[in-house]
């Protein structure tokens, strides 16, 4: 795999990955309504985007859902991972292992449909949740995001030196104290990564949210999907550009923070 073949294949691969994104950004500054024909530079679509109440309110819904889902998913996922890596044998261990990994391979349409049917049945028999909206989306997202958090937390808990926890125990800390004094700080970076992943997954989800949301609680992907289904529209390009900009800034800040932390450790 030496010579010209490999670099060429890699170049092609990266063009494949980035060309659509670049064109998305370029055409967001296009004057013309035709997304693929250049009609001169303009920022009019950004203006239209900011006046679009539907997009703005659904963006707010999505952010709320993502924030709470990520929080809850970290709690459920971390507890699940902790139980599976530290509690040895207990009744229902196999069941929990299955339930915590299965959402990873479960097609979204099945998760979405089955959860909706659960919510409908619960409403009929228990009277809760009354209707569907923010709460049901948060519950659904928490459930599938918890699986991803659990995978990350589990691998960190496995690689962590268990004698750290034993040492704290040995020095007189009870089990709860050990968890908060030692386990949690040590796995914290993994949990931050898990939180970010859960947040992103929740922001990104269209299928599950479409099933379990109700009137008045449309998430951003749901609104984009209904727009895009009818064909390309330049204000979606503008939205995409803003999101890409956010991600870039976040990555640059994260990279800078990590480099600074690395430098401080050496110095």
């Amino acid at each position: 795999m030496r010579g010209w073949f490999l670099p060429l294949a890699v170049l092609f691969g990266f063009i494949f990955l980035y060309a659509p994104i670049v064109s998305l950004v370029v055409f967001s500054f296009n004057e013309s309504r035709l997304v693929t024909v250049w009609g001169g530079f303009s920022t009019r679509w950004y203006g239209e985007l900011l006046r679009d109440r539907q997009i703005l309110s659904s963006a707010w819904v999505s952010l709320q859902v993502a924030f709470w889902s990520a929080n809850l998913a970290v709690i459920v996922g971390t507890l699940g991972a902790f139980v599976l890596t530290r509690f040895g044998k207990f009744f229902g261990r196999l069941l929990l292992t299955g339930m915590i990994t299965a959402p990873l391979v479960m097609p979204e349409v099945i998760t979405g449909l089955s959860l909706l049917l659960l919510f409908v049945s619960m409403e009929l028999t228990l009277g809760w949740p009354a209707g569907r909206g923010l709460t049901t989306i948060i519950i659904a997202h928490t459930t599938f995001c918890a699986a991803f958090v659990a995978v990350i937390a589990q691998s960190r808990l496995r690689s962590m030196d268990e004698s750290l926890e034993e040492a704290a125990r040995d020095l007189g800390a009870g089990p709860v104290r050990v968890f908060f004094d030692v386990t949690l700080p040590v796995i914290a970076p993994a949990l931050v990564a898990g939180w970010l992943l859960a947040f992103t997954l929740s922001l990104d989800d269209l299928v599950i949210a479409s099933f379990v949301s109700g009137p008045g609680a449309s998430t951003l992907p749901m609104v984009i999907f209904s727009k895009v289904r009818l064909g390309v529209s330049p204000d979606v390009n503008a939205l995409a550009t803003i999101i890409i900009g956010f991600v870039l800034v976040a990555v640059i800040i994260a990279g800078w923070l990590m480099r600074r932390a690395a430098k401080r450790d050496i110095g």
Partner: protein
Amino acid sequence: MDGRVIAAESKPWQNPSAQPFISLRGVTKRFGNFTAVSEVDLDIYRSELFCLLGESGCGKSTLLRMLAGFELPTTGSIRIDGEDMARVPPDRRPTNMMFQSYALFPHMTVEKNVAYGLLREGLKKSQAYERARDMLRMVKLEKLARRKPDQLSGGQRQRVALARSLVKHPKLLLLDEPLGALDKKLREETQFELIKIQETLGVTFIVVTHDQDEAMTLATRIGVMKDGVIEQIGEPREIYETPRSRFVADFIGTVNLFGGKVDVAAPDMMRLDLHELGPVLVPPQTGLTHGQTIWGAVRPERFSLSRARPENTQNAWEGVVEEMGYIGHMSQYRIRLANGVLIRVSQSNRLRDEDPISWDENVWVSFNPAAFRVLTE
């Protein structure tokens, strides 16, 4: 060993009426079908430095973890200072442990690590940090109190771990391969430092190690473990000079092992018939009968080499120097006897011969009968 002379009356294990400080009775630990520790009885006395010695997987670490409370014995009882430990969780035991990986909390500074145990005792912050600082002074690390563990060298980390495990003045300190991660030179220095600290504080130490030199240097007594069983307990000298079994003889140092039978077992003389050496005369020993299968062990340094046949002994054989290795303070030889048997011999180089014995020379190998250890297991 200087500085480490233990007078006869300070060897409580020789005094049948002495009260053991730690006592294990019939301690067994099974993991599923695997028996890690099997029926161990062990008494350890106050201020001892006891070494558990064995290869990895022999159960020594499991035994240590049962003392610390991380594992519970499947059967049997553990008492520390008269108190039964069965229902005492690790955080309430009067023991502390120094972990093989040191297990320093990576997110806390050195002084926080050391003060951690004191804070759990309910000590005031200022007091805890003061005592932590004192402890760090003792291990000569007071200047690094504000550093994080990953900014320390291996030797410094080892000392932080030691300080952290000692700061609560435990009745018993458990050390799991305390010097295992250090390089050879540092390890030797630290061995003596460890002994000094142990003597100053008077804390009882139990050290787990796979390194026999380390065990020999540190220990008041050694327990040699194999397959979950303690094969022999004794002072280092006892273990080395009078091993009880072939395993112990072979495991501690190098040894020449021979197999054979008892030929004559009279009260005034004993003759053995060995497969490798033929008839051998040894000092009489009780409990042996004619025809009994035995093994014999002779340490390499207990053999003598000479160019002429030694006069005052019958236990002498002729052979050729097949291999020779010079390692400074001594030389090691492999002598091939006429019947093909290889004998390992080592000679001190304290007296530098003008003309040392070398390759392919014809030599006589002999030993003093007292050097011959008869084993029945």
